[in-house]
C-alpha cells in the first residue's frame, strides 16, 4: 500500500496529544503510533480505563463500516473475535474533523516472527486456533476476507492467535471487500472473490505457506499457479507434513472451517510430529523423572520401553493441552 500516492489527507496525532470526542466527550491521550493501513492510522492511547487502540481515518464511510463489523463481532458469545469495540467519535483538529474509533489494545507478537522463534508445531496449533475462530465467525454469517499475518497477532502466554484488523470482514454471499493478492484465491486463479467460508480457508493455507516463505512470492507467468504452490509446499519439510490439508484448502475442498480444522488437528498430532516433539522435550524434561529412569536396571529393552513411556506421557500431556484449548 505504501507505494500508492494517496490524495486523502491523513490526520496526524502526536504522542502526548489529548483527543476529546466531539459527540461522547470521552478523552484519550495518545502514547504512540502502532501502525497504519488503507483506512487510517492506529495509535496506542490511554483512556479512562487504561490502554486502548485508537484508529483515526479520513473517510467516515470506511471508519463506520469497520465499526459496524466490530459491533457485530462483539455480539458473538465466548472469547472475543477481534478486539472488543469501545467507542466511536469524531476529533476536531485545526485541519478539520476526522472520524475515529477506539478498541481493545491487543499486546502481542506478530505472527511470522513468532513462528520463527518457536518450535514448528506452533504453526499447526495457531492455525487450529484460527480455524476455530473462523468457524464461529462463519456461523454468524460473516467472512473475514483480508486474512493475512499482518491482521493477526499472538497474545500471551498462554499463546493465542487473535484478530487485530477486521476491516475486510464481509457479509457472506457478497463480494470480498478487501484482499491482499498473495492470500487471495482470485489472484491465483483458484476461485472467485465471493465471500464464503472456503475463501477464508484458502487464505489460511496461504498463511501457512507464508510462514515458511516469509518474503512471499509472485505468481509465475510461466507455470500453472496451483502447480507453483504445490511445489512450494513439497519443497518445505514442515509444510509437507500438512500437504493434504493445505492442498485441500487451496482447491476449495473444505466447505467449512471445522472440516479443515479436523484435518489439520490430525496432522499436528501425527507420529512424525510427536517424535520431533519428544526429542526436544526430553532434554527439558524434569530432572526427577530422569533420575528415576536411571535407577532402573539396564535391560536391553529398557531404552525402547523408556521411549514408549516418555512418548505416551507426552501424548497424554498433549491431549490434555488440546482439551484445554477446546474448552
Amino acid at each position, binding site marked *: 500500500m505504501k507505494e*500508492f500516492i494517496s*490524495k486523502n489527507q491523513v490526520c496526524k496525532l502526536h504522542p502526548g496529544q489529548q483527543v476529546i470526542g466531539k*459527540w461522547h466527550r470521552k478523552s484519550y491521550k495518545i502514547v504512540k503510533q502502532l501502525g497504519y493501513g488503507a483506512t487510517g492510522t492506529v495509535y496506542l492511547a490511554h483512556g479512562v480505563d487504561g490502554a486502548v487502540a485508537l484508529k483515526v481515518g479520513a473517510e467516515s464511510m470506511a471508519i*463506520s*463500516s469497520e*465499526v459496524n463489523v466490530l459491533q457485530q463481532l462483539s455480539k458473538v458469545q465466548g472469547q472475543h473475535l477481534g478486539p472488543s469495540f469501545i467507542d466511536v*467519535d469524531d476529533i476536531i483538529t485545526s485541519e478539520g474533523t476526522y472520524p475515529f474509533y477506539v478498541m481493545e489494545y491487543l499486546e502481542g507478537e506478530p505472527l511470522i516472527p513468532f513462528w520463527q522463534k518457536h518450535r514448528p508445531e506452533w504453526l499447526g496449533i495457531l492455525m487450529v486456533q484460527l480455524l476455530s475462530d473462523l468457524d464461529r465467525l462463519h456461523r454468524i454469517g460473516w467472512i473475514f476476507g483480508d486474512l493475512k499475518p499482518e491482521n493477526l497477532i499472538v497474545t500471551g502466554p498462554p499463546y493465542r492467535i487473535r484478530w487485530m484488523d477486521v476491516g475486510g470482514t464481509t457479509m457472506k454471499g*457478497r*463480494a470480498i471487500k478487501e484482499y491482499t493478492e498473495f492470500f487471495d484465491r*482470485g489472484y491465483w486463479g483458484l476461485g472467485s472473490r465471493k465471500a464464503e467460508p472456503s475463501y477464508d480457508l484458502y487464505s489460511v493455507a496461504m498463511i501457512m505457506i507464508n510462514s515458511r516463505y516469509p518474503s512471499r512470492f509472485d505468481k509465475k507467468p510461466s507455470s500453472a499457479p496451483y502447480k507453483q504452490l504445490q511445489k512450494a509446499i513439497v519443497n518445505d519439510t514442515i509444510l509437507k507434513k500438512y500437504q493434504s490439508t493445505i492442498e485441500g484448502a487451496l482447491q476449495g475442498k473444505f466447505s467449512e472451517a471445522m472440516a479443515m480444522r479436523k484435518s489439520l488437528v490430525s496432522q499436528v498430532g501425527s507420529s512424525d510430529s510427536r517424535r520431533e516433539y519428544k526429542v526436544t522435550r526430553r532434554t527439558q524434561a524434569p530432572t526427577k523423572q530422569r533420575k528415576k529412569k536411571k535407577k532402573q536396571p539396564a535391560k536391553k529393552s529398557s531404552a525402547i520401553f523408556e521411549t514408549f513411556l516418555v512418548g505416551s506421557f507426552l501424548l497424554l500431556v498433549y491431549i490434555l493441552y488440546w482439551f484445554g484449548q477446546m474448552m
Partner: protein
Amino acid sequence: MSRGTLRQILLLTDGCSNTGEDPIAMAALAKEEGITINVIGVIEQGQMSEQGIQEVEGIAMAGGGVSQIVYTQQLSQTVQMVTRKGMTQTIQGVVSKELEGILGKETSMEDLEPEKRGQVTEVVDELGETMDLDILILVDTSASMKSKLPMVQEALTDLSVSLNARTGDNQFSVYSFPAKRKSIERRLNWTPKLETLTGVFDKLSSGGVTPTGPALQEALNAFRKRMKKKEQPIDEGIYLEEPGM
C-alpha cells in the same frame, strides 16, 4: 428501492493528452450526464510528470470519480480498488442527497451521529453490492503504453473476477485510443465477460499522439447510445438482458 445502474468510465493512461479537446471539460460533461470517470495513471518506474499527475487528478475530480497513480506491478489491485471506491463515492453522493432531502440541507455524513452513520454505511454497502454496473474501459495505447499492456490486460481480467463476485450485474466494454482516422476504437462490445478480452491489445495502431479529450468524448457517445437502446424497449429496462448489438 428499485435497482438502478451505475455508469462508469475507467481511463487508463500514462501521461498527458496532447491534442484535441480538454479532457477535464469532457469529464465534467460526463458527470453532468450521470457517468462517473475514474482515472488510473500507470507508470513503469520513477514518477509521473507534475503535469501528468494534474491531468489524472483533474479528470477524476471533474468526472466525480477517483484517481490513483500506480506502478504497473500493482495495477490489478488498484484497478479494482479504484472501481470500487468510485462506485461507493457515487452511491454515497446519491444517498447524501436523499439525506439532505429528509433531514434538511447541508446534512452530510459528518453531521450525523456516529451511530446513525453506521446505518447509512450499511445502505451504501448494500447498494454497492446489488446495483448493476456498466463500465466502459478506455485504454491509452499510445507508444509509451505498449510495454504496459500485458499488465493492463491482466488487471482487467482481475477486475472482472472482483466485480463478478457481486450480486448485481456487470457489463463491460473496452475501447482503446488513439485509433486510425477516429478517436477511439472498440476492442470489446458490451459483455458480462471481460475475460474474453484476451489478445485484443495485440494488434495495435499506436502513434505519437494522445487524444485523451476526444477519446473521452467518443466514450461518452458510446455510453449515450447504449443508454438510449436500453430505454427504448420497456419502461423498466434495467432487468432486460443485452439486446446484443
